[in-house]
């Protein structure tokens, strides 16, 4: 915070340049990039470390990674069938990245990479490139049946097809905006309530008593935010596997 007497809930989202390659306008390594690298690094270290000494009777770390595997595997199988398991590594990577990035953001003074729309948007675009690419590769021209619902009479098609196309195109946006908005809103709410504690606390004894209310709120919202962080990662992964299901079976 620039001014210590001012509560600034947006400050946490500011990007700062750590170092840049190629001078001005070149590749800038920001705090967001740093935390993305840390997220990926932590995931890799944890998963490799917990599965390094594989045993039939797993240890604690191994149980955690097995549970994560099972959870995502069941999700993919449930949403996209056993054929969708081809995409398990993809969905698992997305799930782990979003989950870890969200959880990293819950640690005080850490940067939340998913609170900038560009990160979820890049992930959502990646999902859509994969869905469209695989759909065309597997089904060829039949992939476009996705836009023509079965059993619709021919004369309504000029209206229905544009609607379906727009509905399809809206998916990457809703996918990314949902994640971004949840995380952004949650973190701002958290900071605003925490700011109330500070402002009320500086009003003397009565304010001090009043400040306990936002303090309780802040604790509650922190718990809620942990839930949201896990839930949004889950939602992102479930929707990804549902869209992959569309690519595999392109008919409603």
């Amino acid at each position, binding site marked *: 915070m620039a001014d210590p007497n001012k509560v600034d809930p947006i400050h946490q989202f500011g990007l700062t340049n750590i170092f840049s390659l190629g001078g001005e306008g070149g590749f800038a390594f920001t705090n967001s990039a740093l935390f993305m690298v840390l997220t990926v690094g932590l995931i890799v270290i944890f998963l490799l470390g917990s599965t390094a000494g594989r045993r039939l009777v797993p240890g604690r770390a191994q149980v955690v990674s097995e549970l994560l595997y099972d959870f995502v595997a069941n999700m993919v199988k449930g949403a996209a069938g056993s054929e969708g398991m081809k995409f398990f590594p993809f969905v698992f990577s997305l799930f782990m990245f979003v989950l870890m990035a969200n959880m990293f953001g819950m640690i005080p003074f850490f940067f939340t990479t998913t609170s900038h729309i560009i990160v979820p948007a890049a992930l959502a675009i990646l999902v859509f490139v994969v869905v469209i690419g695989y759909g065309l590769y597997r089904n060829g021209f039949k992939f476009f049946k996705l836009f023509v619902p079965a059993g619709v009479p021919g004369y309504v098609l000029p209206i229905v097809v544009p609607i379906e196309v727009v509905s399809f195109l*809206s998916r990457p946006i809703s996918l990314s905006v949902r994640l971004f908005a949840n995380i952004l809103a949650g973190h701002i709410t958290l900071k605003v309530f925490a700011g109330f504690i500070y402002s009320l606390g500086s009003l003397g004894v009565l304010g001090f008593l009043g400040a306990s209310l936002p303090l309780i709120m802040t604790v509650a919202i922190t718990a809620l935010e942990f839930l949201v962080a896990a839930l949004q990662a889950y939602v992102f992964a479930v929707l990804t596997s549902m869209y992959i299901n569309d690519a595999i079976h392109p008919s409603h």
Partner: protein
Amino acid sequence: MPKPQDTEGQPDSAKGVTRDLASRIASAQRERNVEANRASNMSPSDMSGMARGMRIGTEFIAAILVGAGLGYLVDLGLGTRPWGLLILLLVGFAAGILNVIRVVTQMNKAAPPPPGSDLGSSADDEDDN
């Protein structure tokens, strides 16, 4: 778990433990295949109310935004100033409604008897059925 059913040509000499294990593996595999064959039965039904609202809201808004954006681009490209935006905005609105209907259908299908997690939807169900 359904028990015995001695399957897949187990030699009789095999010990009881092994035979039991083989039948259990077979039944587990059968269960797994059944699971795998029914697709898209799973959806985020066990979400909190806030997440549910968020999901429906973004589906709706995103479609409208895409419609408006496409309309704007069409206008920019073809020079048909108000019409592309107007028509595609309406199409986007329709697509938003469609998205919402799909999401809600899916949510309802995923949880036929709501497991007491959400007051709103369980009250709705009592009214409907």
